Structure formats: structure tokens, C-alpha cells
């Protein structure tokens, strides 16, 4: 792809998200979402093979449907109440349709099926953009309309997402699909507290973005898209392999790592509000997710799969890929937990 085209597309990606962030009018927010969708399409179709094309088509269809639903809901809202303000969806039907559309856009559980398929078809770096940057604009809208949506809907979406995210990832061997299911599970945690404590949603979103960036970049550095590739990753870069285990466990939410931070705070908030069964189910569903992260860790650090080992340890050259972002995000993924009070002070 020529650099000029890339510049236009990437700056449009930025423009779309910025527009959705800045707008108080539904039409402009919708326009920002559409810019986001359109600008990512050529990036997804960069590799000219059937999988990428299929993924691009699926992504386009899903996002276009969701955007049309948002437009429908906001038009209905304007029809019923005569105003286009995002923060005031006067009718519950409108708020519900909007939330359903936004859930479809980010891939929450009953409408999550496109996410693993799409991520599986694109490269790891494009997948990184899809699962981090592309979630920002819909989340800006979710945080604004969450107050008006029925609380049962949010809880149902959250429980569904964490359970499906955990169960779906169980028998996957493809790393991008596992990351997609991990994304679904994390989004479930975020959406659970979107109404009770939006600040916690923000904290969870930020930590998820940091952690998943680390995971995607690690896998990209290893050129790994399958679990079997992970088993021989120690020959290339032992340090990165050791850190990758910690990154995955952080995604799973184990205590001394950053991933524990959002789960801890969210569980505390949900318990304080008196939703004990919900908190229990959420905590247990985190175990499902933890299982597949643990399995990846196991494949990476403890075993070699019983196949013929016909490669020698490669000579370690200077890394060709830039690793600044990788090392920064890995440090943040593993060491941010002691900064919890600061995060709380900043965001709450």
C-alpha cells in the first residue's frame, strides 16, 4: 500500500474516533463511526488472500448493519422527542436499540460471532487496531447511553459475554481466535459496570487496551498465529517467551499483574451494589478464560509438542521490528497493579 494512501486512511481512522468523541449530535456520531469502518477496510484487505477478503466483507456487513441500527434508533428518537442529543435518549426503546447496535459493533456476546472470524482473517497488527482503536468510538457512545438502557440488558450482555468468551476460547488452537474470545470476555466485564460506575469501565478499557496491545505485539514479534508455534518460541527469544507468559496471565487476571486491577475493582463495586450472584458468576467465568491463557502459557513454557524437532536455535540478530511499544506495554501489563490508587484518583 502506498504511503500516501496509508496516511489518508490512518488519519481518517483518527478523525472518525475524534468525531464520535467530540459530537453531541447523533448524526455526527454516526458519521464518525462510519468513517472508522470505512477507513479500516483497505487496511484489512491489504493481504490479497481469500481469508482477508472474507474478513473484510464480514466486518463491513456487520458494522454497516450496526451503524444503520444506530441511525434508525437516533432517527426514531428525533421523531419522538424532536432532538438529536446523544446524552438524552428519551425513550427506552430507542436506548435499547442503540445499545444493541453498539454491542454488535464492539462484539458483545449475543452478537459476537463475527469477531473471531474477522480477527482470524487479518494480520496481527491490523487485529491490534481492530481490537483496540476501533473499540474506542463505540465505547464513548456506550458510556453516554448506558444510563438510559435497562439495567437487566447490560447485566445480561455482560454475563453472556464473559461466559461465551470463556467457553468459546476453550478448544481453540488459533491464537487470533483466542485473543478474540478474550476480547469478548473483557468487554463483558466492562459493560457490567457501565451503568453502576462508568469510571471503572474506563479503567477496564484502558488496562485491556494496554494488555491486549502487549499480547498482539508479542505474538507479532514471534510470528505466531498457532499454539504449536508458541512451543518453539523459546528458541527465538527466551526473554520474550518468559514475559509472554506473564502477559497472558495478566490478561487472565492473576493478582500481582495489571489484569487483576479492573476485575478486583469491578467485583468490589458489583458486590457493594448488592449483586452477589452476578459477581459470583462473573468471577467464575473468569476461570474459564484463565484456563485457555494457562494452556497457552503451558505450551510456551513447559512443553514441546511431540513432533520432530528439525530446527536449531537461530542466531540472534538485532531485532528488525521496532520493539519500543512492545517493551513499554509489557512493562505496563505486568507492573501496573501497585498504581491502582493513582488510577482511581485519576479517573474517579
Amino acid at each position, binding site marked *: 500500500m502506498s504511503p500516501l494512501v496509508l496516511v489518508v486512511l490512518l488519519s481518517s481512522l483518527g*478523525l472518525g474516533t475524534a468525531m464520535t468523541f467530540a459530537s453531541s449530535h447523533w448524526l455526527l456520531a454516526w458519521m464518525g463511526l462510519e468513517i472508522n469502518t*470505512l477507513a479500516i477496510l483497505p487496511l484489512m484487505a491489504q493481504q490479497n488472500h481469500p481469508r*482477508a477478503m472474507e474478513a473484510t466483507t464480514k466486518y463491513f456487513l456487520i458494522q454497516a448493519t450496526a451503524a444503520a441500527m444506530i441511525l434508525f434508533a437516533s432517527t426514531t428518537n428525533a421523531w419522538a422527542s424532536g432532538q438529536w442529543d446523544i446524552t438524552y435518549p428519551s425513550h427506552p426503546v430507542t436506548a435499547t436499540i442503540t445499545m444493541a447496535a453498539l454491542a454488535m459493533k464492539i462484539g458483545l456476546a449475543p452478537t459476537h460471532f463475527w469477531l473471531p472470524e474477522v480477527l482470524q482473517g487479518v494480520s496481527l497488527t491490523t487485529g491490534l487496531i481492530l481490537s483496540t482503536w476501533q473499540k474506542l468510538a463505540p465505547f464513548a457512545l456506550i458510556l453516554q447511553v448506558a444510563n438510559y438502557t435497562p439495567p437487566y440488558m447490560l447485566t445480561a450482555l455482560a454475563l453472556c459475554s464473559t461466559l461465551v468468551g470463556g467457553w468459546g476460547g476453550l478448544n481453540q488452537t488459533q491464537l487470533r481466535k483466542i485473543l478474540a474470545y478474550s476480547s469478548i470476555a473483557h468487554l463483558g466485564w466492562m459493560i457490567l459496570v457501565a451503568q453502576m460506575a462508568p469510571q471503572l469501565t474506563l479503567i477496564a478499557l484502558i488496562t485491556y487496551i494496554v494488555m491486549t496491545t502487549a499480547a498482539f505485539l508479542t505474538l507479532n514479534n514471534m510470528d505466531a498465529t498457532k499454539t504449536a508455534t508458541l512451543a518453539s518460541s523459546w528458541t527465538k527469544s527466551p526473554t520474550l517467551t518468559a514475559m509472554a507468559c506473564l502477559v497472558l496471565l495478566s490478561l487472565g487476571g492473576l493478582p500481582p499483574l495489571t489484569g487483576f486491577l479492573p476485575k478486583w475493582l469491578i467485583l468490589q463495586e458489583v458486590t457493594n451494589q448488592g449483586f452477589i450472584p452476578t459477581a459470583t458468576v462473573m468471577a467464575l467465568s473468569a476461570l474459564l478464560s484463565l484456563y485457555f491463557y494457562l494452556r497457552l502459557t503451558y505450551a510456551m513454557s513447559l512443553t514441546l509438542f511431540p513432533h520432530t524437532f528439525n530446527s536449531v536455535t537461530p542466531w540472534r540478530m538485532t531485532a528488525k521490528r521496532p520493539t519500543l511499544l512492545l517493551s513499554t506495554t509489557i512493562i505496563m501489563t505486568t507492573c501496573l497493579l501497585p498504581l491502582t490508587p493513582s488510577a482511581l484518583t485519576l479517573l474517579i
Partner: protein
Amino acid sequence: MVYFAFMLLVGLVLGLVGVACNPAPYFAAFGLVVAAGMGCAVLAVSGAPFLALVLFLIYLGGMLVVFAYSSALAADPFPEGWTEVTVFEQLAFYLLGVVAAGLYFGKHWYTLFVGMVDSCSKFFTIRADMGGVVAMYGSGGFMLVFCAWVLLLTLFVVLELVRGLSRGPLRAV
């Protein structure tokens, strides 16, 4: 006039059913033409002739012609019409659904009909749809530049997706 609007609405529903029951793209395009034409007529009857004209020109004149052209290119020796069993099943299902909905709402169904947007009646000299256009250009203002950018970006993305001889999107598949 109400009877006329009623006939147009029936035509609209029939056109939509014709598309929704999954015939071959040739016939589905025809269903879309019917639905779009009837929709424009409903708009015009409801008091928004300018909107109807814009919709008719852009949707039928621009988009649907291209769609009909590309579906005609996808040569299908045995296109499935509405009389094929699989299509007819769905056709019957949807029509029965419409009738059932009509029976369920009983005699109150027509209260659901959107009333006429007839703002010419009193002291207003601007019709509702023209007023809407004026409001969009007036208070929309600078944001329409972004709107134009979205359209340009769409063109750009389409060109990028189908560029070159070897990089056509369907050539990979």
C-alpha cells in the same frame, strides 16, 4: 387520497416481501424497484415531495441502476423466480405474517399510519421537507464539510479495494 395512500402502502409491503423472500438477484432488484418507487410515492403523498424526489433520483436513478447492472452481469442460467418452491414458501410465510399482524392490530391498525406532514395548511409557506433541508444547510454549516469528506473517503476506499489488475477483491476468492 387516503385510499390512494393505502394502495401505495400495500405496494410498498408487497415490494419488500418480494425482496425478503430471497429470489434470484434479477427479481430481487425488481422487488427493490417496486419498494423504492412505492416508498417515494408514500413520501410524496404524506407531504414531502422534495424528499420523495431526492430519494427517487438518487436511490432509483443512481444506486439501483448500478445494482441491476451488476446483478445482470452475474449470469444465472436458471434464476429462481417467486414461483420456485423455496422462494414461494417464504413469500407465503411473509404474506401470512402481514395478514396476521393486520388481524392482530384489528381495526386499530390505521392509527399506526403516520399522518400527513402537511405544513402548508396554515400560515406556513415552507413545506416540512424543504424546511428540513434549509435547517440542515443553515445550522449544519461547517459539519457538512465532514460529510463531504466521508463521501470522498468512501470513493477512495472503494478505489483502493478494487485497485489494479491483480488486486481486485473477488480475484482473491
